[in-house]
């Protein structure tokens, strides 16, 4: 393990450029390429039944243990999922444990939770103010927690024995994220494309797989036109919905306002939001994937905005329809969807990664406490 830093990452056979690989894609009917495959997809071998059993097991034990089991249950689900996603014939590995997740939760409870509880018990602040304080604290810690979770997960993800890691400071990322949030509010959302670009570049550029550092050259150019369209559609849609609620509160007699509001807020608004923002989101996503490189590997995402919006809405309605119990199915759908549309260009088979020393971190930090993790 001592020679790991001197090995050069990437195979020697990697003369191909993304253009060449794309060319192979286009000429799929022509003679087979004489070189090793340069176009790869992630293979998903997870099965719904198995995942479902893990989820239900987790849920029941969590209820029985007043939620304490959930950390171990979550680690188990991650282990399962990681082991059923393969690249170049080898499955990934999740090396994290429930104990680590639990320890992160306890630390966050001590640092954030107890002070807030103490504030509630021993200060004379009225309840309304306290709620605002808690909300602001959680809001400010959001980016910090997200970065911590991202770093922890990367560090616990192995492929062919080689682990990922993330550099950079969660504090810096949080300061950046909160400053951008402030600008977002002040500009009524118009700094979003630029802010998204900055944050995505910050995150991606600090990712390492072994000793190979990811690069990201995401630019904001080309995003603003789509964002303007999204902004107008969502703005108009929200305006109409709010108008309908206000209007009907005045005129509809003996109508169940609750029903109307439920339909508008849980059915109509999500559709408007997903379709409207989808115009921008898909461009951001595709550009971000295309702008990222890892050594000689390049990536493309062949999905249209309509496909993505339809997919997300279906997930939303599956979750609502099953009161959350369908989460295992939705999760599997998400993994399969990503695998179906993501193409990896480059010499995956022959790539040789070296382990990066000193990449270990201890725990996930605040994410478990703030409930930011979806599984």
């Amino acid at each position, binding site marked *: *393990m*001592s020679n790991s830093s001197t090995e050069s990452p990437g195979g020697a056979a990697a003369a191909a450029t993304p253009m060449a690989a794309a060319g192979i894609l286009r000429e799929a009917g022509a003679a087979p390429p004489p070189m090793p495959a340069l176009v790869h997809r992630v293979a998903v071998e997870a*099965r719904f*039944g*198995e995942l*479902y*059993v893990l989820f*239900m*097991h*987790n*849920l*029941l034990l*969590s*209820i*029985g243990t*007043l*939620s304490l089991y*959930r950390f171990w249950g*979550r680690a188990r689900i991650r*282990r*399962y999922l*990681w*082991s059923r996603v393969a690249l170049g014939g*080898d*499955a990934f590995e*999740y090396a994290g444990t429930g104990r680590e997740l639990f320890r992160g939760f306890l630390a966050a409870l001590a640092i954030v939770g107890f002070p807030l509880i103490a504030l509630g018990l021993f200060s004379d602040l*009225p309840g309304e103010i306290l709620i605002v304080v808690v909300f602001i604290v959680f809001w400010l810690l959001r980016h910090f927690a997200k970065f911590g979770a991202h770093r922890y997960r990367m560090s616990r993800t*192995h*492929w*062919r*024995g*080689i682990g990922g890691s993330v550099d950079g400071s969660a504090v810096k990322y949080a300061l950046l994220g909160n400053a951008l949030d402030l600008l977002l509010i002040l500009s009524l959302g118009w700094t979003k494309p630029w802010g998204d670009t900055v944050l995505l570049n910050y995150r991606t550029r600090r990712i390492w797989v*072994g000793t190979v550092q990811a690069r990201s050259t995401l630019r904001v150019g080309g995003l603003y036109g789509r964002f303007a369209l999204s902004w107008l559609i969502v703005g108009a849609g929200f305006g109409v919905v709010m108008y309908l609620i206000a209007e009907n*509160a*005045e*005129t*509809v*007699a*003996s*109508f*169940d*306002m*609750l029903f109307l509001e439920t339909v508008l807020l849980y059915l109509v608004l999500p559709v408007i939001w997903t379709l409207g923002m989808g115009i921008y989101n898909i461009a951001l996503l595709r550009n971000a994937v295309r702008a990222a490189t890892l050594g000689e590997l390049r990536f493309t995402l062949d999905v249209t905005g309509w496909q993505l919006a339809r997919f997300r809405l279906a997930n939303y309605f599956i*979750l609502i329809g*099953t*009161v*959350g*119990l369908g*989460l295992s199915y939705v999760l599997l759908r998400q993994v399969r969807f990503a695998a179906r549309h993501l193409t990896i260009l480059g010499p995956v088979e022959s*790539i*040789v*990664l*070296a*382990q990066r020393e000193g990449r270990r971190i201890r725990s996930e930090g605040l994410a*478990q406490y703030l*409930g*930011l*993790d*979806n*599984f």
Partner: protein
Amino acid sequence: MTGFGARFFDGSSSAPQAATVTLGATGLAIAPGAQEWTYAGLRLLEEVYEGRPARLRSLGAGDARLVVDAPVFLSALEARAPQLRRYDRRGRRIGPAAAGWTAGVAAAIAAIYFGLPAASGPIAAVIPLAWEERLGDTARESFLAQLGKSRRVCEAPEGVAALERLTARLSATMPSRYAWHVDVVDSGEENAVNLPGGYIILLRGLIDRAKSPEAVAGVLAHEMGHGISRHGTKSLIGNLVVQMLLTVFAGDSSRWAGTAADVALRSHSRDAEREADRLGVDMLNRADIRAAPLAAWFRRIAAEPGQAKANDYVSTHPPSAARAQEVEARGTGKGDAMSAEDWKALRAICAEKK
């Protein structure tokens, strides 16, 4: 002992190495490299399902990994490294497991859904009156704070006396642990609330717009019905339990579980409204007060949706024609709620002193 074909990753490079593994006396022998991984230090990377390879690491070998495809390998290894058996899920059938866990989760959810209202009653019953009154006092303060500048409690003495007479008359019809604290607050909203500990707040708008004292008596009786059934206290307990459950679900299905819990509480609160209606009409009947004006009030509020926004009592529990009909059908009282002088005094309860 014959060897098993394996893929070996040394942990410092991702390059796969073809290897042969044999089960030795004290551990796995990996060739080439002549490494030995002791049986006690072996761990599986994840649970192994039917048709999946065994992927191993060793406690002393850092990030090195060993992948063996042959199914008999793991079975043979488990005899020497029994700690691996826990992770061996081969041969377990998914169907029965899925059915079993689903039944378990369904039973847990049903126990919570049906147990919540059933359990909150007994819990509410053992809460000492003093606690409940303190709870109600706090709730009253925060309710008044919500009303903002119109928080003044009306205190015109004749009006207060009239209200006390009505309260005493209704309270005498039904035993309860509470000394009722009924206040009128100077707010134009047409609303009334019951809080834990026997606290009831009527807003001035309700009295202003009431066509008769019997309508006010009806609403007051309805709120006292809530108090006697301890709905406020029970729903506080229910909310606490729901909060706890949300923590259980947090991060997994919290948002969806929250929606479900909300629906459950709403449906329970509709039952609570019916119970309060029933008790309220019983009180009116025993005090011999006409119930028809309460029914008329329900109908008017239902037809006046402009009120709905300002009136949370109405917006969460829309008065329906069905409720009005039930009140009308069950009401047997024939008398008045109070004298004409008392009604005049009550209507002037918020007037400032001259």
